[in-house]
């Protein structure tokens, strides 16, 4: 059985003189919620468009559920549900009619799935209200409902929480988590709301200027974003001995520049500073540091931009 739902191999897309996607190697494991992060124009939508068959790559290849040939990929796309650059709705149709048009398109037998899907996204009571009169949040939920028709194994959602109110964001988050955990649906989600992505994704890909600059799991990200106590003293070796003997911990790291990163969060900074001073050490710097996804992303992008 194929472990990966999506894999790309040096996937590139060039528009005239602009390299929209440059030799991207992305891999999404079955069962993952893959957060795709990048600034506007970084190449997120270009990659999604290539995966969905809306554009053709200039070079490289992509593998969807193990299939690589163009003919096989067309068939394999029946196994995915998509929202690409906003929900695709017929404004003069009701929610149920929109789903019916897509049900017929996908060849799904029976109309029962329409009511079931509307209930899943909380749009069962919209009646004869046309999609053009829906709020932005309702349109997003209808877009997700369309993507969910036919029980896809892989959901590709480009900015699915744009325009949602806080309650709507929470609802969509819990819906996506439920789909992932209970229905084993793999999800690729791109969003600018990184704090929200951090609450949902199990894996991350950071793209910048068409290049995939990092791919990491939630565990790896948490390790990189872990809070730590930054300590700089006049004698780092003595400080390390003090920390080990007094706080019974080895969960710290002496950096090449002589500073110490202490990862044990149970020791309050005040207690650490008091102990070090009592042992005759001179504290030059002591502060609690750490990154969230947003700052980590900014540093990675900044590093690339200025590197």
């Amino acid at each position, binding site marked *: 059985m194929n472990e990966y739902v999506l894999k790309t191999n040096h996937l590139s897309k060039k528009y005239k003189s602009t390299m929209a996607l440059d030799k991207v190697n992305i891999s999404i494991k079955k069962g993952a919620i893959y957060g795709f992060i990048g600034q506007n124009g970084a190449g997120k939508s270009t990659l999604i468009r290539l995966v969905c068959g809306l554009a053709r790559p200039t070079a490289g290849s992509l593998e969807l559920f193990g299939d690589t040939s163009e003919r096989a990929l067309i068939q394999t796309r029946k196994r995915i549900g998509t929202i690409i650059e906003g929900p*695709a709705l*017929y404004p003069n149709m009701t929610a149920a009619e929109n789903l019916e*048009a897509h049900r*017929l398109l*996908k060849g799904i037998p029976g109309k029962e799935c329409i009511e079931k899907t509307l209930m899943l996204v909380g749009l069962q009571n919209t009646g004869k209200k046309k999609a053009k009169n829906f709020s932005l949040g309702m349109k997003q939920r209808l877009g997700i409902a*369309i993507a969910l028709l036919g029980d896809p194994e892989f959901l590709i959602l480009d900015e699915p929480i744009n325009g949602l109110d806080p309650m709507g964001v929470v609802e969509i988050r819990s819906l996506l988590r439920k789909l992932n955990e209970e229905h084993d649906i793999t999800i690729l989600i791109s969003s600018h709301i990184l704090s929200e992505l951090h609450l949902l994704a199990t894996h991350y890909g950071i793209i910048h200027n068409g290049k995939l600059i990092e791919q990491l799991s939630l565990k790896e990200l948490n390790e990189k974003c872990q809070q730590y106590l930054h300590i700089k003293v006049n004698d780092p070796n003595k400080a390390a001995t003090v920390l080990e003997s007094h706080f019974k911990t080895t969960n710290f790291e002496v950096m090449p520049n002589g500073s110490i990163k202490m990862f044990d969060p149970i020791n309050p900074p005040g207690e650490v500073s008091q102990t070090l001073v009592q042992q005759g050490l001179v504290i030059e710097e002591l502060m609690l540091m750490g990154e969230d996804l947003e700052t980590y992303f900014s540093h990675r992008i900044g590093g690339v931009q200025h590197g």
Partner: protein
Amino acid sequence: MGNLLKSEWFKLKNDQSFRVLAILLTTVALLFPLLEFDGNQPGLPTIRGYYLNTVLSVHTDIIKLIPSILAGFFITSEYSLGTMKSIVSSGNSRIRVYFAKLIMFSVGAVILSLILPLIMTGASAIYFGFNEMPSLTFYLQTVSLIAFYGAGFASIMMIFATIFTDSGKTIGFLLLLFLLVDWPLQVLAAKVPFFEPVIHNSVFRLVYDITNASQLNTSEWVTMTLVPLLTFLGSGLIGSILFYKKEIK
């Protein structure tokens, strides 16, 4: 292909522009014959004369212009709404997507093209007391040819509706094209002898011969029926190649 056709038929049935155009044409078809009851007229026309001189006199404009509006709303709007993205990524080949859309758009164009010949003739027959009906053969011949040419023109419209991604541009361009195309084609046929037989045997020229259906010989009938069919297939092929290569935005 069956799924795609069902989906396109569902969308056509629910398309607001199609409904509005159909209702407008039906209203015109029902009300226009009543103008013959104007007191200044010497008497009521015969149905045969009314069909030939009034109903068929506007059929070329109906075939060419009214479906142009439908093309903008039914086809091009799929790009501007973003729904074409979900159609293309739904696991159907682009060639099938194109032909399913072309077939249903042609059905819509034919329905609109036949409203006047069917309803206006029926209404006038009732209003004028079934006075001298056109021969059934002539009536069926003209109605069939209108349907054929409606589909032929629809396939040409579909190419431009695929090239443009904005409904307004499609409608504007198609209306201008079909209003003005006869004149440059005539000039081209006169100036370049190579094009003369092509243009004279194209849908643009032959559509005007529908009213002469009763006077056509066998070879002219073959030309009259084959040309729209070949136009449909040729334009469908060109359009599907363009659609196959098109980047959906």
